[in-house]
């Protein structure tokens, strides 16, 4: 097992390269993926390596090029569509929900859509109300889709080939705050699946359950708690649809306390779904009511101090954990 220094962005790029090399049916399309190099520089250099047929710059036409991705998938290709950010995916929501997700069922199983859609998500860069959404929950609501949230270098590198092996649409959410994350990447692709959640830190006192861009914050919160003698387990969901009920139940049964951390808005959030499942799956094993830390219910404001206050932070996560840990020790 070799380890190499890498970034989250570089890991995503390597995954794309590998996929393009491995299968001539694979191609990448989206706004500014080619000449510009990707708005988050993920596809930088791929145009030079693979040419404009396979690294396709599209006009600003989210509905059209996502729909075209669906059509190309039906026609035997294996498209990877990049939507610049989740904010703009709303212009393609119709194609994703009404066509990609529903096609297999409404055709009685005759057709299916092996399409991968990647997009950046999340807040934290002072980009204000229209560029800071976390709408993973909306997509995780829809049967027919598989929704992934790579939060580590390994997942950034090895989820894509798994997604491309699927026969149905897979959405991959890349939190914009993670692109510069650095670390070691090991070649252990075999261990990566796109089915299960992963324990990122073991702990016996409570479970911190999260995904995506909130994982680093949650791990920081766990460190803070550890210094106070509270051992928190951190569960990274990784797959937002279908949720890994078993891992969720096992973690909560082990620790008997749960804090759900979600950058989505609280009402109707993924956190709401997780709370419901925790209660359904482990009600009698709980020693405290589960709690959640979500984004405050307002469009994301521009000033840094207000944006910070609106989003989950390591401090607020730790505070929520302390509240349920202390009360019952």
């Amino acid at each position, binding site marked *: 097992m070799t380890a190499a220094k890498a970034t989250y962005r570089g890991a995503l790029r390597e995954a794309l390269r590998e996929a393009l090399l491995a299968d001539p049916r694979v191609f990448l399309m989206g706004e500014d993926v080619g*000449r510009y190099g990707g708005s988050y520089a993920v596809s930088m250099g791929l145009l030079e390596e693979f040419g404009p047929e396979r690294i396709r*710059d599209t006009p600003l036409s989210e509905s059209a090029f996502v729909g075209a991705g669906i059509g190309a998938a039906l026609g035997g290709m294996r498209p990877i569509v990049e939507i610049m950010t989740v904010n703009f995916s709303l212009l393609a929501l119709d194609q994703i929900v009404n066509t990609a997700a529903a096609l297999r069922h409404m055709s009685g199983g005759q057709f299916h859509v092996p399409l991968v859609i990647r997009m950046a998500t999340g807040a934290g860069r002072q980009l204000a109300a229209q560029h800071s959404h976390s709408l993973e929950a909306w997509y995780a609501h829809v049967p027919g889709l598989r929704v992934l949230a790579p939060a580590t270098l390994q997942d950034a590198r090895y989820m894509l080939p798994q997604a491309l092996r699927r026969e149905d649409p897979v959405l991959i959410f890349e939190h914009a705050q993670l692109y510069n994350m650095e670390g070691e990447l090991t070649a252990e692709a075999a261990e990566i699946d796109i089915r299960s959640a992963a324990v990122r830190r073991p702990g016996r006192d409570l479970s911190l359950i999260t995904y995506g861009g909130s994982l680093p914050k949650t791990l920081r919160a766990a460190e803070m708690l550890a210094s106070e003698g509270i051992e928190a387990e951190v569960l990274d969901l990784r797959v937002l649809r279908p949720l890994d009920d078993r891992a969720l139940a096992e973690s909560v049964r082990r620790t008997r306390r749960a804090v759900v951390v979600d950058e989505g808005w609280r009402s109707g959030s993924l956190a709401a779904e997780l709370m419901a499942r925790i209660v359904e799956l482990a009600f009698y094993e709980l020693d405290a009511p589960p709690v959640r830390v979500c984004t405050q219910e307002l469009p994301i404001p521009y*000033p840094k101090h207000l944006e910070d206050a609106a989003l989950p932070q390591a401090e607020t996560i730790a505070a929520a954990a302390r509240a349920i840990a202390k009360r019952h020790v």
Partner: protein
Amino acid sequence: MTDPSLEALLSRSHALELLHGMLRIRRFEEKCAELYGQLKIRGFLHLYIGEEAIAVAAMAALEKSDAVVSTYRDHGHALARGISMNAVMAEMYGKRTGCSGGRGGSMHLFDAASRFYGGNAIVGGGLPLAVGLGLADKMQGRSNVTACFFGDGAVAEGEFHESMNLAALWRLPVLFLCENNYYAMGTALERAQSETDISAKARSYRIPAEAVDGMDVTAVEQAVRQAVAAVRAGAGPHFLELRTYRFRAHSMFDADLYRDKDEVEAWKKKGPIETLVPSLQQAGLVDDEEIDRLERAVAEEIAAAVAFAEQAEWEPVEQLLRDVCAPEPQ
């Protein structure tokens, strides 16, 4: 106007007004770029430098009662529309005294008093809104015009085409102003459009449309005045494609690797300020002293705006949840 000397005087003072308007935007944005480097301004910052003639000339041709719909590249539109530089700069800082209460920042400048409906950062998102504003005016028998700005990139979106059709079908009083700077981020127009003649697209919806040199402030003003008059007279929507160029990168995150340096330099020579100043000088309408005076006035206004933004307090976090919805009726 019968007295030729009066006409000359008026046109001189008007030309100076236009120049002043463009200099305000140019220097304001140069300052913003500097403040971005000092981390005073954050997030996305899209500079309008090079495109100033369009905002200044278009706003000169609109009435106070008209409405304006802008994009994320909105500083020039906002300043030319008459939103105070203090309020715009404070918004860039995210202060409560900003024109959007500090909540919007650079991309989301709003001002109810001047019917400035923002600062939309979803490409194409402003067009349907403008159609609706026009619809409201028409249904209520008002003779207002809604001026809607958008870029060449927006022309590829479905919302553009849907809006063209609806505005034409219902003969709405909307003036569409396409700022064609030939790039949508890193994608050149000819790499995004099968038909690069943008005004032809509008004509295909039976909207009178014309392409104008967007670097020529007087040409823009003349074209906008004519179009506004026609729209106001009830002739339905009109469309102007204003050909221009952004001199700076798309945003502060853009390394600008997709276009030739020579191309940028060539366009800079054609810039709206770069061309207006010598032509005024040649006509004897302005001398160096006059230009110095304008520059000093602009520099003072900017210094005051920075001071205004700097001295404002940060909004207390306790007020985080304000302005999400109207207060519940009692």
